[in-house]
């Protein structure tokens, strides 16, 4: 899951960043993703992992870094089962 997400973000922001991104890097805050990039990432996650990200879940606790995203998605996918 983590690799897929990192790969997608790297594709999205290939012109902004030269090096590969770490799972602990702040995505929106550090400018790796802009607002639209974050919305695209969320749309990708919904499609790829067949889940619905609720608007109230789009907060720093769930989306700050790739690590936060994977934790959030894992909990969400467990809840779905």
């Amino acid at each position: 899951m983590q690799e897929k997400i990192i790969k997608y973000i790297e594709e999205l922001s290939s012109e902004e960043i030269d090096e590969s991104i770490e799972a602990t890097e702040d995505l929106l805050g550090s400018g790796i993703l802009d607002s639209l990039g974050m919305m695209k990432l969320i749309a990708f996650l919904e499609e790829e992992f067949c889940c619905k990200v609720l608007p109230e879940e789009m907060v720093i606790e769930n989306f700050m870094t790739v690590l936060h995203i994977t934790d959030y998605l894992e909990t969400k996918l467990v809840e779905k089962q």
Partner: protein
Amino acid sequence: MDFSWTQKQIEFKKEVIDFAKTNLGTTYIEEDYNCKFSKKDWKACADFGLLGLSVPKKYSNQKEEVDVLSAILAMEALGYGCKDNGLPFAMNAQMWTVQTPIAHFGTEAQKDKFLPKLTSGEWIASHALTEPEAGSDVFSMQTTATKTDGGYILNGKKHLITLGPICDFALVFAVTNPKVGKWGLSVFLVEKGTEGFTVSPNKAKMGLRTVPIGDLTFTDCFVKEENRLGAEGAGWSITNHSLELDRCSVHASQVGAMERQLEQSITYVKKRKQFGKSVGRFQSVSNRIADMKLRLETSKLLLYKVAWLKSQGKPAMLEGAMLKLQISENFVNSSIDAIRNHGGYGYLVENEVERDLRDAVGGVIYAGTSDIQRNIISQIIGL
């Protein structure tokens, strides 16, 4: 693929048109000239149930839940039936950028306190995001909300706020944690009369002159914790939440206005005779009518597609940006064509043709300029 509307939706659209034609102003020349807001029209729309279309029926006077497609169609009908573009524009601003976020992110107490008063037309509210130094780059906003005992202290200024000068409360975005950038924005419901909260008088504008627009200033303004909307840091999500629906609905009214404009143009160019025949017989004029029809139909296609995507709970980032760009620019172009078709008659204020053009220009600026929509489109498709 099915492009048809249900019988019920068609009847609802007709009802809204009939309502607008019989209950709203027959002329807006004086209101436009004097920048006068019509509270009477606002209330009439509320009583008819239009303001309640963006929230569950529990908070409005709707008899049954209205689906997104019907709500959008109703706003198109209002744009067609109401001669004033300002009224639907202002209503949409409140409906989708104040009511919908409260309905979604609000506590039960907030929903019960604010929504019935808004949908009934008793209260009016504004959505305050833009600042003097933060327009297109809105996330660079400088208004701050500093945590204190029992609430927050707001400081800063909001700019170009629709309904701001007459609002009973404002939904205000402010920075609560500057260290985390876009994640550090929160939203507050700031009520009129709160110490430290002032509004400017209505500003004179090129168009949409029936809508009061102005600045909001916060000077050491204490807002109780219970008036924070959503969690701390939910500001970014709240800005995105109803953006696509807002775009659909506000531009639905422009589509309705374009339909009215086209019908008016056709009637006029058939009746007006020069060189012994109807001016509509001259190909230069009929070409313009064809272009207006094409703009109307392409606008409708985009509008209905986005409305359909939203009705299916699907994202519509790309389509929403294309809709905003296409419809707002089409409305400007068709408004100029409508004036050309009417000749000097169209240029005179008293005939209420030229006002559409002045009103239309706001549409290529508010809620993200056309340049910004082009940026979004090109970015989404891979640039």
